[in-house]
């Protein structure tokens, strides 16, 4: 468990996507898009400071024992299609729920030749289990942000996501 005790408190992920900032923004914030990549959660955002964020599990994940709402949070900043900051609390079991809210920032920058840069910064103070899940370090819990962003890029660039 030596690596777990050193769990990073901030994780930074970056990916270049051949898509407009607006398309990336929609893919992050609109449920019809969030159901098509990554963990296929159904996102609900009130895109204003103080607004709610909820990530709901698909019926398939709920059938596997996941709660209906897997992640909740509060929107801190929403500046479409460039910057979104919200708190993030996992709810899939009591242990992670007790770790309390963490904070995620999405930054989208328009680059050259129709390629945009998406940076996800997740601040994870005092949330080691949440951090391990997001880093893809928990067996059977998927690949975390790297998996989600790889799949998002594939979906936006090819119209298809990775095989489940």
């Amino acid at each position, binding site marked *: 468990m030596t690596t777990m005790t*050193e769990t*990073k408190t901030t994780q930074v992920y970056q990916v270049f996507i051949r898509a407009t900032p607006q398309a990336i923004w929609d893919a992050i914030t609109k449920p019809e898009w969030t159901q098509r990549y990554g963990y296929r959660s159904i996102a609900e955002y009130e895109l204003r400071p103080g607004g709610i964020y909820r990530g709901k599990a698909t019926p398939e994940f709920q059938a596997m024992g996941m709660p209906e709402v897997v992640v909740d949070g509060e929107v801190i900043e929403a500046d479409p299609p460039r910057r979104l900051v919200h708190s993030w609390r996992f709810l899939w079991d009591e242990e992670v729920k007790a770790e309390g809210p963490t904070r995620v920032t999405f930054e989208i920058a328009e680059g050259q030749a129709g390629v945009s840069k998406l940076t996800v910064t997740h601040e994870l103070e005092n949330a080691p289990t949440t951090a391990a899940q997001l880093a893809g370090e928990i067996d059977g819990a998927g690949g975390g942000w790297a998996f989600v962003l790889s799949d998002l890029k594939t979906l936006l660039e090819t119209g298809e996501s990775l095989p489940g």
Partner: protein
Amino acid sequence: MTDDDDRVFKALADSTRRFLLDRLFARDGRTLTELESELEMTRFGVMKHLRVLEDAGLVVTRRQGREKLHYLNPVPIRLIHDRWIDKYTERRVSALVSLKTELEGTA
């Protein structure tokens, strides 16, 4: 994008750069000074390697006050993984990797 893949493979084709990534994997958000202290190399040499890793997207930097912190960005490696290793070969490969780890006693 092939150019990006080329940059990632080239960046990984160097033991010093793989060592830097391993250090950042163990704990990231490190400064150049911290990373430099673990290598028998000039500050300039370490900077050059970090630049190659940054150009390949494997390292992302953030400013915090006066410090520049280096973070491991696993997404390009994940993209190569998703592109080159489908879920069937992955199982076979991981079985071979476990066998190798076990035989070499590094588990």
